[in-house]
């Protein structure tokens, strides 16, 4: 299986599991609504009966916005203050849901049932939580190491640098290096998860090295497949931005249209995660099958000897 086929199969996996896709989107929507519940009241109290509001309909207006924030900013900060906790809960929930996703992908030929999905969540939830925290630690460690020179430069008050261009160079290099590492770590993390679920392993640490080896050995497949999803995401994001800017949000009907667009975009983003996991499952399985086929004749020869 080459990377492009892997990419297409990932999309097919996600489409085939449309119910699961819808479920995950609905959870995202539910979190969005929960976080936003207080917003209409706060905005309504400050903006619904003032004539200044029309300026915000035309676009951003510093005066109206700042006066609003000065008057209602505390209420807003209560809402935004809850977001980190909500995001953390969402991540933990999604980690558990990933177990269900991988379980249903492992049985892609069979008909989707929520029963099997939830069973997967329960079966692999704790295991994948450990994977998540391990890789979160690795991500943070790598980020710290990569940005350490930059942090030292900032702390030294730019003493060590010729000028800010040197700082930008360090920043650029740091970001690129970090991105390369982050992508690689994310890929390894995905293959660890797939190996744990598909091969029924229990030790997170034992799967680390084989996964690294797997990603490296098949880099010409695994990496371009990642890039394809990245490219697809960038293209769709740009298209969304272009379209929503053209429509604007200056009338109620335009607001409704953009709202639908926004939700379609979020639906797609959730789907991207599912597609990516689908591709990884398919790629892993295809390579594993191929390797096993190669190994079989060897065993026969050995018996003959």
């Amino acid at each position: 299986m080459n990377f492009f086929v892997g990419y297409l199969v990932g999309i097919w996996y996600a489409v085939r599991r449309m119910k699961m896709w819808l479920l995950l989107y609905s959870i995202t929507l539910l979190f969005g609504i929960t976080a936003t519940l207080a917003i209409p009241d706060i905005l309504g109290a400050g903006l619904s009966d003032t004539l200044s509001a029309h300026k915000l309909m035309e676009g951003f207006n510093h005066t109206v916005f700042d006066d609003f924030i000065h008057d209602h900013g505390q209420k807003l900060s209560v809402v935004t203050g809850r977001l980190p906790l909500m995001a953390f809960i969402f991540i933990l929930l999604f980690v558990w849901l990933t177990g269900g996703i991988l379980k249903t992908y492992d049985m892609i030929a069979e008909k989707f049932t929520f029963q099997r999905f939830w069973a997967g969540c329960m079966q692999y939830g704790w295991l994948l939580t450990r994977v998540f925290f391990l890789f979160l630690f690795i991500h943070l460690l790598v980020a710290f190491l990569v940005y350490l020179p930059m942090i030292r430069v900032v702390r030294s008050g730019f003493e060590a640098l010729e000028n800010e261009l040197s700082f930008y160079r360090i920043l650029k290099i740091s970001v690129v290096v970090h991105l390369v590492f982050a992508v690689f770590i994310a890929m390894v993390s995905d293959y660890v998860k797939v190996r744990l679920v598909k091969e029924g392993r229990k030790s997170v640490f034992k799967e680390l090295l084989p996964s690294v080896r797997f990603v490296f050995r098949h880099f010409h497949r695994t990496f371009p497949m990642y890039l394809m999803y990245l490219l697809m995401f960038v293209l769709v994001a740009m298209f969304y931005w272009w379209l929503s800017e053209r429509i604007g949000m200056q009338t109620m009907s335009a607001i409704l249209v953009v709202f639908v667009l926004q939700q379609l975009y979020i639906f797609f983003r959730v789907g991207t995660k599912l597609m990516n996991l689908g591709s990884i499952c398919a790629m892993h399985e295809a390579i594993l099958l191929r390797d096993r086929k190669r190994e079989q004749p060897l065993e026969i020869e050995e018996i003959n000897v």
Partner: protein
Amino acid sequence: MRRTVLWFGVILLANSLFGQATIADEPLSDRIANYDIDVILDHENRMIRGKQTLTWTNPSSDTIRTLQFHLYLNAFKNSQSTFLSKSSREFPGSLKAEDKETWGYSEIVKFIDQHGTEITSNLQYIQPDDDNTSDQTVIELTLDKPVYPKETHQFKLEFQAKIPKIVARTGYGRDYYFMVQWFPKLGVYEPAGMRYAEKGQWNCHQYHSQSEYYADFGVYNVRITVPKDMIVGASGIFESGNINDDGTRTHVYRAEDVIDFAWTASPHFQEVKDKWEHVNIRLLIQPEHKEHTIRYIKAAKQALSYFKKHLGVYPYTTLTIVDPPIYGIRSSGMEYPTLVTGASIAKLPNAIRTVEIITVHEFAHQYFMQMLASNEFEEPWLDEGFTTYFENRIMDQYYGDQTATIDLLGYRAGGMEQSRTSYTGMRNPQIAEVFRPAWGFKHGGYNSLAYHKTCTWIATLDNMVGREVMDDILITYFERWKFKHPCGQDFIDVANEVVSKRHGEKFGVNLDWFFDQVLYSNEVCDYKIHTITNNLITNKIGFFDQEGEKVFIESREEVEDSVYNSVVIIHRLGQAKFPVDILVRFDDGTEVLEHWEGIDPTYELNYTGSKKIEWAHLDPESKNLMDLNLNNNSKRVERDTDVVWKYTSKFMFWVQNLITTLTVLI
């Protein structure tokens, strides 16, 4: 023919201006304190050594027996100076205790009076502002022989200074030097009646972290000797440059009718020369900031042009703009006569207009503090507030009133509106009144009040009296007080005079009620449309006699000839009182403009008729920018929820975006 004559005139003018520091044939100021200085930069030891001749005229009818000098660099002598000990939060770690090269000081090593007598031993540090005996930023000299009224004396002194690392405004950063307040500088002797002086007195304040400067006008002839590879910029005009045998170069500058002299040196400067009418613009820019050259020059020309049109022509023939490097960034955004520092960093997007804002702002100081030489220690609002006001006028005109400061990725803000919100958005806009000395803002608010509140009330005054009258006030103030030392009351007097001449008693006998509130008190202004009600008055309700019987009529239904009692209730939430217009719109499309003096805590507008109120708008032209909340200045009867749903959907979308983005970690 006409063109030839014109060109001939231009050439004549250019020739006549060549070598002149100003466009005037006569002195522009009374030239009270004049300096001839020879200064040598010892780059290796971060020292300067200078010889200075001060020619000073006693402007008063007093016999003067002491002189007071600023030794500003002593602010960086040790941690006990008033500057550093009272601004620990502002300069953390900038002057490192373990690195003596970062500290600096200044001292007069020899002082010889008019009669050739050395009187160095008569020098004594004084602390006129606080009892901090460790502060050595002001030194007093007791003269052996006094200076009699109107008499001119010449004093010769030698000084040396260790240059501090740039903490604020002055010092060095690697091989970049920004030398301001570097020489022993005489204070201002204020005769009785000048500004707020009740009797003749020296005005020579200590150096505080927020305070700037105050000095008399004069002529400066300065010879600056630096390593020959260094490029030098300075106040005034460049007269000559000679290479010395020891590998140094002496740059000779002359500045006339100025209150100060600043210079800078660095081997890295790239020099860009341009011209606007009679002004030679010289930009000394860091190579890594070259991309901003056009931005600097364009902004300078816009400011020159705007001031010529709205206040008065810039009389000097030079303007030097210094672009500091990142390691000298703390010298950025400063103003000295004919020399200002900009602020930029490489790759700064054009949509963030820091380069333009700082250039325009610092240039505006050429008028407010340089030509109108107010006391920056005692009345910082008088230079910073007016400068900010002009900065915003210029920026809003050339870059858009909603995009003048930033216009990036949908976020945008104009100059005047950003100044207003810098004041109205303060956590405590009542923390102090504007009329305070710079060091009086002990618990914060200096920037928001001296710069932005002042700018906001000047803009409010502008809106009230009209731009034409406002310009008349400003031009009168400028013409009357240029090359002198005006105080706040002088501006108020001019404003009262011009407004009463142009508007009669439209705004009262004078504008003192306005200045009392915005300048001398910390009161805030906030008017609010509290409620609007449209109550139906039914023609018939209750018992009515009909054919000998009492009939109860209870219909409240609206009929064609329904009559409404419509009421608008307005609250004054702040203590400040401003007259205010109220525009009321009815459902038949008609509008009524009402006026309220804004004195009582509440006010009511009452209408009875067949039409209902649709909305009411206080100060519909947004003249009163001092109002803390402009959103509550209007109210509509029917709520419009479009904006609520627009931003609710945006908020939800970004939350969903955020959490789905985080799934990359899973």
